[in-house]
């Protein structure tokens, strides 16, 4: 492997800086060129197809969104742990340790599969079953 320095990360930083500059620049241009009319009540009202909005939109949401996020984060973390193992899999296979790595990898994935099977069985993956009108929504 050729010797590297941390400079390989420089384009990433430059790209992020460009994103910031682009954002600020575009908004500055818009600020300069765009008309700024009077902010009438109708103009700054949230759009609800012409009706006057009732209450705030920051009401309580159904908990199924959280359950989806929960399943997601567990799978996310497991895939993160699998990335370095997958990256060395081929090398170790060529060195003759393929079966050992495969067994470890498969046992890891089987636990992952248990998780998804559990959620499937309990109906957490269904969207409709857990549909409940939250009684807090009017408050």
């Amino acid at each position: 492997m050729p010797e590297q320095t941390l400079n390989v990360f420089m384009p990433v930083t430059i790209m992020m800086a460009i994103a910031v500059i682009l954002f600020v620049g575009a908004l500055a241009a818009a600020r300069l060129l765009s008309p700024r009319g009077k902010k009438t009540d109708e103009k700054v009202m949230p759009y609800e197809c012409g009706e006057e909005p009732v209450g705030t939109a920051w009401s309580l949401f159904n908990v199924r969104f959280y359950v989806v996020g929960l399943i997601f984060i567990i799978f996310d973390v497991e895939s993160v742990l699998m990335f370095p193992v997958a990256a060395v899999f081929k090398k170790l296979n060529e060195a003759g340790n393929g079966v050992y790595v495969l067994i470890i990898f498969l046992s890891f994935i089987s636990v992952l599969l248990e998780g998804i099977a559990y959620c499937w069985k309990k109906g957490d993956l269904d969207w409709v079953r857990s549909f409940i009108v939250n009684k807090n929504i009017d408050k």
Partner: protein
Amino acid sequence: MISLVSYLAISLLLFFIGLTLMIARKNIVAILLGIELILNAAALNFVAYSRFAASNIDGHIFSLFVIVIAAAEAAVGLAIVIHYFQLKETIHIDEATELRN
């Protein structure tokens, strides 16, 4: 210029802020935010020590598992918060005084 001490200082500051957040805030979600900060401070320390005071990268593995556990902790902690809110309709920590309903 950048030495171990600079990383330890940042980590200490993070730990301090996290602890303050954890003690001062009365919102349970804010307390979980504080815990995340503290875990990050610890993980940063692991990597910093592994860079400056060790010849191997075991510290990276530790911080990897710290991140894993932080994810699991956040998932379960927030689930408890949401469940608690559904029972009591509040997430004020001082009102969470009962173990059972």
